[in-house]
């Protein structure tokens, strides 16, 4: 088996979830290099789509990578740059955010964004018994965010028409924004039954705002993505955080393992691997708790 270089290009650790991705990528690099002595893994982070496009070009030109695992900052702008590498013979595996043209990738390890929205919608609808007022705190204006919110809305419209969505504001996957937006929702809406925060970082802020206002009408807050602190709350039976929906940053690990295996053993890799978004409740929480991960 000849020497192989595998490039891993991921967003820089600019908030909790991407912090988790960087952590898992670095951990897996160590793991893989031990597993395959002929394999070199290069992990690089990029602060935006433009820099990421530059970065994978550098990996090809200078580091001479044979395989690329990329979690794109954004889908659309990275489609062509990834396709270029594939055309030059690099084995490309895309994680989480699907390219706009599937031909640009050899394999896809998918996080399930619509799934996250759907599972969340189901949980909110069922727990409220099909009736009540819900506020939504969205992420950053992106395709991912749209996918999640659209799926959530669809569930509500089709299955729970009596649930009223009071408002949807962006909270940018950010704790401080979560706090502010929730404070204002509390001022504006005298009765809120549940909060869908779409992301656990946002949920951290939401909880503080509710605690400060001392409001008792809110039955639960549903975050998302499976931050360890939130999983812990679920496990401990927190009254407001009764569940979480996964969107695990360690999907980067799955992708790297699969890619390395396929490259080093010359076997095919499944075209598409979906990492489903699942509901975490008190019963199964232990399975999703990674105390060592930063997320």
């Amino acid at each position, binding site marked *: 088996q000849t020497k192989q270089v595998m490039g891993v290009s991921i967003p820089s650790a600019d908030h909790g979830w991407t912090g988790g991705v960087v952590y898992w990528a670095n951990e897996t690099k160590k793991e893989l290099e031990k597993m395959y002595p002929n394999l070199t893994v290069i992990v690089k982070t990029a602060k935006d789509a433009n820099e990421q496009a530059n970065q994978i070009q550098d990996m090809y030109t200078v580091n001479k990578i044979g395989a690329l695992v990329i979690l794109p900052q954004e889908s659309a702008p990275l489609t062509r740059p990834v396709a270029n590498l594939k055309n030059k013979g690099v084995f490309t595996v895309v994680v989480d955010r699907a390219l706009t043209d599937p031909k640009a990738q050899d394999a896809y390890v998918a996080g399930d964004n619509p799934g996250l929205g759907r599972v969340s919608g189901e949980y909110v609808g069922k727990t409220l018994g099909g009736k009540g007022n819900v506020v939504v705190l969205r992420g950053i204006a992106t395709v991912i965010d749209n996918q999640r919110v659209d799926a959530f809305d669809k569930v509500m419209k089709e299955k729970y028409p009596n649930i009223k969505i009071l408002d*949807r*504001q962006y909270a940018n*996957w950010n704790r401080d924004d979560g706090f502010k937006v929730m404070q204002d929702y509390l001022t504006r809406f005298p009765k809120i039954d549940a909060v869908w925060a779409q992301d656990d970082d946002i949920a951290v802020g939401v909880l503080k705002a509710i605690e400060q206002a001392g409001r008792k009408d809110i039955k639960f807050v549903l975050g998302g993505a499976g931050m360890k602190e939130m999983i812990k709350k679920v496990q401990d039976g927190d009254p407001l955080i009764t569940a979480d929906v996964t969107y695990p940053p360690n999907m980067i690990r799955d992708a790297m393992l699969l890619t390395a295996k396929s490259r080093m053993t010359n076997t095919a890799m499944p075209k598409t691997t979906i990492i489903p978004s699942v509901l975490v409740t008190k019963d199964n929480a232990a399975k999703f708790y990674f105390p060592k991960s930063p997320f």
Partner: protein
Amino acid sequence: MTDPSTATKTARPPLLSRLGGLGPLLGLLALMIVATLLNSDFLTVSNLSNVLTRASFIGIIAVGATFVIISGGIDLSVGSMAALIAGSMILIMNALGGGGGGVGIIAVGMLCALAIGAGAGLLQGTFIARGRIEPFIVTLGTLGIYRAVLTYLSEGGSISLNNTLSDAYSPVYYSKILGVPLPIIVFAVVALLGGLLLNRTRYGRYVQAIGSNEQVARYAAVDVNRVKVITYMIQGICVALATLLYVPRLGSASPSTGILWELEAIAAVIIGGTALKGGSGRIWGTVVGAVLLLSIENVLNLTSIISVYLNAAVQGVVIIVVAFLQRGKRS
């Protein structure tokens, strides 16, 4: 012409230009009226107290930024400095507390935060004043450095205060004195002290002189380098103070803490009527600017008349309009 020797009679500047000086206040008033029309909850005590509490962070930082800008400088690093201070402070307190901890440890953490803020300011100020490097570049550089160090410390995740400490510390953000949230009181005190420092002390006078004409200040025996270094230290201390209030709110810091605060702080200063080119400015304007900025956000959250996609556009329009109301007169 009057007899020059009896020249002490002082007419006041014309009404119009005095009104121009009140521009930001008028802007804030107009916004509050619109807000109340849109949602009557705007004027409730609890909402106003929320808005003012939030304005405290940016406001306290902006008080420091007022000094920096009047001196003819700029500090782009404040947001990431806040993140770094928050992160380091939490790590220090957690380490000292060893899972538990009390008021003593929090006091130590606070002192460390202030020391880091002052130290960072000293560093930047020294590069700028003695190293003679453009403040824009120095603080753009440290912006990257501070945030990177925090990211390194937190391994990209968040750094959270342990629960015992978090409970012990949280009153600093959440408690009230005579019904007024503590952050608002701190903000008011900082603003008052800032106003006093700027307008009633030698240091403040020197800051203005340097911003107006550095060369003249130098010839008039002002220790320009020292005054500049102190200015960046004051900025650092203000950032640390804001952080002292920030940490107990969420009990954590992460790489996204404080992102773009520099733009908000500078915007507050300039909306408040301080000119970016330095030389003169006013603290009360900055306070109004900060409250105004945070009120816009609040109003947008309280109503749904326009698409959420356009929130940033509304903010943009409002700050341009306010700035228009108080623009400088042509010389």
